[in-house]
C-alpha cells in the first residue's frame, strides 16, 4: 500500500495505491494521518482510490477513521475514482453519504 499527498488550491489530495486489507491497513493509517496532519487548515481532503486494486471491509473502517480525523480539523472528505470492486463495497456500506464520490 502506498500513500502520496498533494495540495491543489485549498484541497488536500491523498492518492492510495495497492491492496487495502488487514495486512496493509496499519501502515496506510500512519501514512494517511501524517498527510492529514500536514494538510490541517485546508478546507477538504479528496482520497483518490484509482490505484487501489483491492479493498475489503477493512478499507471501510480505514476510511471512517480518516473521516473522523478530518472532521476534528473541520475538513470535509471526498472520494474519487474507486474501481468497480471498491465502489460496490462503498455503496453497500453507505459510505458515500459521509464522504461523497466526486
Amino acid at each position, binding site marked *: 500500500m502506498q500513500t502520496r499527498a498533494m495540495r491543489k488550491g485549498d484541497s488536500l489530495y491523498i492518492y492510495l495505491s495497492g*491492496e487495502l*486489507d*488487514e*495486512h496493509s491497513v496499519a501502515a496506510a*493509517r500512519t501514512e494517511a494521518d501524517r498527510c492529514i496532519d500536514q494538510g490541517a487548515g485546508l478546507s477538504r481532503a479528496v482520497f483518490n482510490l484509482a490505484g487501489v486494486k*483491492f*479493498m*475489503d*471491509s*477493512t478499507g*471501510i*473502517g*480505514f476510511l*471512517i*477513521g480518516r473521516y473522523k480525523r478530518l472532521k476534528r480539523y473541520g475538513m470535509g472528505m471526498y472520494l474519487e475514482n474507486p474501481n*468497480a*470492486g471498491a465502489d*460496490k*463495497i462503498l455503496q*453497500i*456500506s453507505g459510505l458515500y453519504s459521509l464522504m461523497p464520490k466526486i
Partner: protein
Amino acid sequence: MNEMQLKFLSRSENEVFARNVVAAFALPLSPTLAELSDVKTAVSEAVTNCIVHGYRGGEGWITLSCRTEDTCLHIEISDSGRGIADLEKALQPFYTSLPEEERSGMGFTIMQTFMSDFSVTSEAGRGTTVRMSKTFGARAAEDAR
C-alpha cells in the same frame, strides 16, 4: 468437479495468498472479473475474521477448502479460535465486537451480499466455520430469461 484443501497460519500476509489461491482455483469456471472480485472480497473478509476475531492476533491454523460443481464454487473457511458467542448479533450490519479498533462491522454483510449462498456455524471456545458459494454466470442466465 474439482476439489482443494489448504491449511495456513493466521498471519495477515496470508490474506492476499488465500484470496488469490481461491481466484486461481475458480478460473476454469470462467468467472467474470466482477464475480472474481466478489469472491476475493468475501474470502478476504472470512480470513480477516479468523485472524482478528478467531485468534485475536495470536497464531493458529486456518483451513480453506474449495469445491467446484458445474458453474458453482463452494468455499469453506474454518478456524479453531474463540468462536462467536452471539451469532445473531455478529451478523448485524455495522456490529463489531472491537469498536475501539476502527472496524466497520461489515464483514458478514459483505460475504452475504457478494456470494450466492452463505452460512456460518460457531461454537464458543471451539471455532468458527463459514460456508459460502457462488454460481458464476447466474446474472447472465437471469438476464437471458
